[in-house]
């Protein structure tokens, strides 16, 4: 993690924590389909990035060839929420290698809710208030 990114990140995460306490389930939909208690850390390569409403999606190919799940669909908040915690519409591109912390679907399917993403340049971003924060690092 680059130290230069920690100020705004810390502020964004602090804001996210506070908002999560105030409004846990008031997003586009409830996040109850995700298992928040068993978060995973993945390193992968972006195959597709959709900056869209009602949600932003990252399609990620797992860089660990031995992992059980090779391809993950990762749900993020929406462009408005992400803009307000410092994201930019073009900051993730196909081919980027990302480190993400996610809450996987309870069903065991290869989908997950983003908690935190580390970009190739080391900058770290949360996923806004309603999605909640990373519980692992």
């Amino acid at each position, binding site marked *: 993690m680059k130290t230069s990114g920690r100020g705004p990140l810390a502020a964004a995460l602090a804001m996210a924590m506070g908002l999560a306490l105030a409004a846990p389930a008031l997003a586009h939909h409830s996040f109850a*389909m995700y298992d928040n208690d068993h978060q995973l850390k993945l390193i992968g390569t972006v195959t597709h990035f959709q900056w869209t409403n009602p949600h932003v999606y990252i399609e990620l190919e797992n860089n660990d060839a031995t992992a059980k799940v090779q391809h993950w669909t990762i749900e993020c908040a929406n462009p408005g929420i992400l803009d307000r915690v410092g994201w930019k519409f073009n900051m993730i591109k196909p081919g980027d290698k990302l480190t993400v912390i996610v809450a996987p679907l309870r069903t065991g399917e290869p989908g997950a809710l983003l908690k935190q993403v580390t970009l190739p340049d080391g900058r770290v971003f949360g996923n806004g208030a309603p999605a909640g924060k990373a519980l692992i690092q």
Partner: protein
Amino acid sequence: MALAWAVTAGLALGAAPATAAEIAGQPDISGVWAHAFPRPGQPVDPRLDVGPLPQPPLKPAYMAQWTALREKQKEADERGEPTAGMEARCLPDGMPSLMFAIYPLEILQTPGRVTVIEEAFSQTRRIYLGEAQGKVGDVEPGYYGHSVGRWEGDALVVDTLGIKESVPGYRDIPHSDEEHIIERIRLIAPDILEDQMTVEDPKVLDHPWSFRFVYRRMTGYHMLEYVCENNREVTDANGGTHLQLDGK
């Protein structure tokens, strides 16, 4: 026919005198506003603390309906198959839920009109100043209802009627076609806006139900567009929500 046109034209001309000067005499509530969530690590500003939502005074049959719905939602969440709300189906939340402002609200003041835009779904409420409210059965039902307003001192008092019965009430509380929502919107500090809501619905409520929202000004914020173009939440036959996996 000619007379009808002349009358219409005359009315249109007659409706024009509201000017920028008229707006200049009104309290300025224009700008972008965000729900005033508490900020972590900072003392709670009592002006921003709305406290818990007062229990809605629902008549017994509606209270039973609402309690059963909430129980069903809780069970669905525990199963990991949350019940699809309006938003999960790419539908706007409508009145009064949009005034909760999980996304920013923009207020515009123009002659004869106050317009409220909520960023999510680009929802738009038009509040007509100085017009009389219609009656149940005459007002065409919609997501935002028909809103008329007037200034009472520093407060914009708004009456909304005609919210579609299919649009869930705030926190899914039932409502009927007779529902009126009375709002008193006013600045309680230069950068803090309050919306005191009172729901009157004699079919559903024992007595009027009041709660309030408080907003903080977002200085310099430019509202974003919101087109619900990529909904990958699939609603199953039981109303549960599932993520559609792309696999690309």
